[in-house]
């Protein structure tokens, strides 16, 4: 069994090079560290952090700007814009970014911010849903979540959300793919260790949608999930799938108390 694992790891190039203890890090990370929870910010290179530090250097703010414009844009047969019902996003969306995903009674399951936006579009605005990972949906999601920037993540995992939280947790610890790795294999057991030339983070979700240098644009949390799943050579689920929304809730709770950072900048 062990040989198979080694062969699979070797084939992929996804080798964890450093064994042993996590790097000790004495830096005071301020708001980016809450108890033993550390934002991906604290694992990023200084240059990458400095791009996030200034809103006029952070290219993701171009998406937030677009989201602001779309917020005020009337679309659909109902002749409404987001602002028609929700007025000033700074007030009406102040919390949303910190408390989603939430249980949605009419569907009997969780929905995340992207899905809430599209529900508003199809049901209230009578407009077409935006495609996942489209510039529009990314921009609006980044804009909405940005309104909660600085607020501690505080999702609800009890009541009707409880069974979905449990499913998300199960997903997180479930080994998958040819590499037979779970989310936790990297982000819990090896956070702070190098995976080839990259420093593994805790895999916190508080900065999404995030500008990734690799993508050279803003991308969604579910795009990141798909990337992780592909890298362990598992078949990724669809963006917006129940599996990923449940995982999103589990991850949010795992990073409970970390401030919303959207839009973050990461490698």
């Amino acid at each position, binding site marked *: 069994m062990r040989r198979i694992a080694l062969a699979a790891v070797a084939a992929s190039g996804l080798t964890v090079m450093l064994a042993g203890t996590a790097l000790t890090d004495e830096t005071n990370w301020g708001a980016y560290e809450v108890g033993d929870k550390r934002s991906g910010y604290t694992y990023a290179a200084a240059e990458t952090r400095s791009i996030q530090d200034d809103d006029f250097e952070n290219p993701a*703010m*171009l998406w937030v700007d677009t989201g602001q414009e779309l917020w005020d844009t009337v679309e659909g047969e109902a002749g409404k814009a987001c602002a028609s019902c929700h007025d000033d996003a700074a007030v009406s969306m102040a919390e949303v970014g910190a408390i989603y995903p939430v249980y949605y009674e009419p569907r009997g399951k969780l929905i995340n911010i992207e899905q809430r936006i599209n529900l508003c579009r199809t049901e209230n605005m009578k407009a077409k849903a935006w495609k996942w990972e489209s*510039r529009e949906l990314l921009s609006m999601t980044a804009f909405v979540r940005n309104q909660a920037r600085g607020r501690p993540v505080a999702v609800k995992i009890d009541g009707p959300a409880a069974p979905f939280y449990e499913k998300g947790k199960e997903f997180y610890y479930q080994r998958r793919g040819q590499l037979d790795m779970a989310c936790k294999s990297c982000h819990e057991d090896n956070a702070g260790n190098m995976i080839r030339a990259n420093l593994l983070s805790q895999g916190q979700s508080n900065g999404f949608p995030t500008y990734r240098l690799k993508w050279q644009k803003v991308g969604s949390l579910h795009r990141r999930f798909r990337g992780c799943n592909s890298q362990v050579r598992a078949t990724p689920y669809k963006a917006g799938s129940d599996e990923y929304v449940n995982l999103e809730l589990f991850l949010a709770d795992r990073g409970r108390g970390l401030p919303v950072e959207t839009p973050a900048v990461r490698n």
Partner: protein
Amino acid sequence: MAKPKPRVKVPKTAAKGEVLEIKTLITHKMESGQRKDKKTGEKIPQKIINKFVCAFNGKEVFSADWHPAISANPFMSFYAVATESGTFEFTWTDDDGSVYSKTAQLTVE
């Protein structure tokens, strides 16, 4: 691709003679011309913003010629002296000839 969207940071007011820092960003893929289409194997043609100009009251203050090695969503920051009140005009010129622009007002006290 959606129309490129610029973003600039210029102070609204300044003292005469002050050296101001100006920061600019614009959405653009900056297609390098080196990349291949994964499906067809064909090279994707270069399409970048090749020129950035900052003028103040019609006179060029700063410009840059960009090559494909400039990152996507290009960032450029630089400085300008506040001499009088007026308008900064920023223009980005695309390989396809399109020009994207943005203006910002400065009041010198």
